[in-house]
């Protein structure tokens, strides 16, 4: 899997299969503060990821 962490502008390659929540725990990222996007879709914490996936992890912003 390839995970792009937007805040740090880094790509991480890792062997991973599990939920979005599991991935964020493994990357030591607070799941409450980010959205995970795969194939132009925002995922929820319980969506399942496979080892082939490419995801982008973006900080949530709620300014108005």
């Amino acid at each position, binding site marked *: 899997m390839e995970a792009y962490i937007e805040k740090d502008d880094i790509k991480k390659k890792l062997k991973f299969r599990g939920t979005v929540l599991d991935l964020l725990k493994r990357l030591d990222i607070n799941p409450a*503060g980010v959205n995970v996007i795969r194939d132009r879709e925002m995922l929820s914490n319980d969506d399942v990821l496979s080892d082939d996936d490419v995801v982008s992890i973006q900080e949530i912003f709620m300014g108005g």
Partner: protein
Amino acid sequence: MKMLYTPYQRYKRQAILKETGNIQDRVGKKTAVIVGLGGIGCMSAVLLARFGVGKLVVVDRDSVSVSNLHRQVLYSEKDIGKRKAKVAARELRRANSELKLESLDIDVCRSTVGQLGRFSPDIILDCVDNIETRICIDEYCTNGKIPWVFSSALGTKGMVHAVIPSVSSVREGWFRKVFYGKKAVINAKNTGILNSACNLVSCIQVTEAIKVLSGKRPASELIVIDIWKNEIRKLKA
């Protein structure tokens, strides 16, 4: 008050648009509520007022501060310390004296969101600056089957998505699926915001709102922009 111009004179440049068709009469009978009069809400209010929506209700809980002035286009230096809802109503009347306009100085939360019902809104524009109020708007609109247009901006980025509860249960659940339980760690105080970014978000938000009010289909995707990178993306919603 004597009408200075006929509706035809005022709106003829947008009424001939082939993309919209003449939707002026239809939108002119609708009521839009704007919750939050910050960077996005100010420009969204200006655009809807000038478009000729039938009635506009502007809602905010706050006063104008000096750090608002670089991006919140309804306020001037002389307005610092004044209530935003009242100042916004004054400026919007200057822009369009024929507009039916009301202002509401409240903090929209679970116990107050029901007050929006007395205006019988055809659409609610979410221009607030926190998830908690957005959740209230989402719940209120879902229960009342009221379309609403989510918007958010920070830094050089922004997001917009029109949610139509009466049309699709999938889109109705979109906000809940993606944002419930989340917390925005970054905000305008610690990250900053480019004035053009939030005003671009307003332009997209109002365009989506006009589509909804005129009975046309808004984008089904979440529209994400980064004005610094000149990027616009559409994410599945």
